[in-house]
């Protein structure tokens, strides 16, 4: 990217806005913490006011005014339509087939959309022990479709994850379907370079769209496998003034809330 062409927004902002645009009004979205949560709430504040956001802590139809730092911040409960026990959220609501979109992050994703959030290196002798799968394995299995949001680098976008915390298309070519997984699996990976989608048949992810200031070659170079590029790579429109203003205001409110001192009443 040349200095003269530097855009007035960050790649993070472009990624969050792009992910938000993929959600629609009234869709039921099971939200992971971090980038997915920012994107899902941005969608709610923009074009999807009646989106139903579910967090695994048991909050259904929540409308937080600031982004939660944790999956169970009080803000999520206080603004929810319902708060249910955690075993129920997984059994009745997710496994019960009531979720349209599972919105996930991870440490690594591979060419078939399998996610690793467990370990880098051998499981028994880890190089880096990551937090673990949490709710993701069953979100990835049951949601009608899954969107993944992850910043791109050759370390995070790998040919094959060493540990499958959550199943994407496994080895591709119908392998996922053969396991009896209920949902359709990952249908898009939104990165800070553009968007990847699975190819029909092979189920390998290919670049289908890029941001205005990103060269296809840069997206390929930031991928740890020989990334296939669709014949006609779309150029995604930049964030609108409105999208940027709402996102920045959301982050500002969140920073304020997180720096507010808590006083114990004792």
């Amino acid at each position, binding site marked *: 990217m040349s200095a003269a062409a530097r855009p007035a927004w960050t790649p993070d902002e472009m990624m969050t806005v792009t992910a938000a645009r993929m959600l629609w009004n009234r869709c039921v979205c099971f939200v992971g*913490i*971090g980038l997915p949560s920012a994107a899902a709430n941005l969608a709610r504040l923009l074009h999807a006011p009646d989106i139903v956001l579910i967090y*695994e*802590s*048991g*909050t259904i139809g929540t409308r937080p005014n600031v982004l939660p*730092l*944790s*999956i*169970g*911040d*009080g803000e999520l*409960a*206080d603004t929810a339509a319902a*708060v249910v*026990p*955690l*075993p129920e959220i*997984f*059994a009745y609501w*997710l*496994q019960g087939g009531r979720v349209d979109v599972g919105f996930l992050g991870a440490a690594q994703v591979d060419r078939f959309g*399998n996610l690793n959030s*467990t370990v880098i290196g051998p*499981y*028994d002798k*880890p190089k*880096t*022990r*990551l*937090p*673990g*799968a*949490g*709710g993701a*394995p*069953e979100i990835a*299995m*049951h949601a009608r479709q899954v969107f993944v949001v992850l910043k791109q680098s050759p370390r995070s976008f790998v040919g094959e994850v060493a*540990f*499958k*915390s*959550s*199943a994407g298309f*496994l080895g591709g070519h119908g*392998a*996922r379907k053969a396991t*009896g*997984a*209920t949902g359709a699996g990952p249908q898009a990976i939104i990165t800070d370079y553009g968007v990847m989608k699975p190819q029909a048949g092979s189920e390998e992810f290919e670049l289908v769209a890029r941001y205005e200031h990103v060269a296809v070659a840069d997206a390929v170079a930031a991928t740890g496998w020989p990334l296939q590029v669709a014949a006609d790579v779309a150029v995604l429109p930049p964030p609108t003034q409105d999208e940027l203003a709402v996102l920045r205001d959301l982050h500002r409110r969140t920073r304020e*809330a*997180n*720096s*507010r*001192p*808590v*006083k*114990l*009443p*004792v």
Partner: protein
Amino acid sequence: MAITTLQAAIAEHVRDGDTVALEGFTHLIPFAAGQEIIRQRRRGLHLVRMTPDLIYDQMIGAGCADRLTFSWGGNPGVGSAHRVRDAIENGWPGTLVINEHSHAGMAAAYVAGAARLPFGLLRGYRGTDLPRVNPTIRQVTCPYTGEQLATVPALNPDVTILHAQKADRAGNVLVSGILGAQKEAGLAARKLLVTVEEIVDALEAPMNGIVLPNWVVTAVACVPGGAWPSYARGYYSRDNAFYIAWDEIARDRATFTAWLDRFVRGTADFAGFIAALRAAGAGP
């Protein structure tokens, strides 16, 4: 059921080598109780918790445990649980054997435990590597449809410890807000210890509210603020700034140990812990 002090409850009911679950999903995490276990220097515990975060970082870094059953271990929204990580990666301060699940699997294990069934059942783990590294995750064939379903062995802790908003003088406990698997973990255990924000004359529980009646509760202790830096809805909010600050405290063994010695091992109880933090300009 006895209404007692936290010190007495831990001294009487938590033994070296016990399987102990401290539950509460981001909300109502029993920090004061975990720190009292550190003060009383329990060893060889099998710790169970869906989300080992700061309290298990402290307990594992303090050397209380040699086994951990969990489904997500980190500092929510911040990064690693450095002490849990150091134990798994480097065996510091001792070897930690892990028994790893997904949230849905672990929730099913608690539900089975509460129901005194041998295993929990779910449509889960398919295509993942978790069953490969945790051989207790198995499969059964549905006798009606022939479908292969995942099973997890029931979790039945020796002791489950919860924090709740309030109890009445007879020891009935009322919990509200984000519950996680508190009720299931509580009913799955042989003994249930509960710390509360306050003890009241009348519980005034709403119909269908989550009440743990006193005949399933082993002991109740009143520890105001006992969930800090997590939160107790209606009493205080989550101290997100402390969770962010913990990253630096826990990253380094020496810094962590100095913090633990000064504020936890060096204080008599939770009130002393809060007072010491405040005196250091780092208190809530």
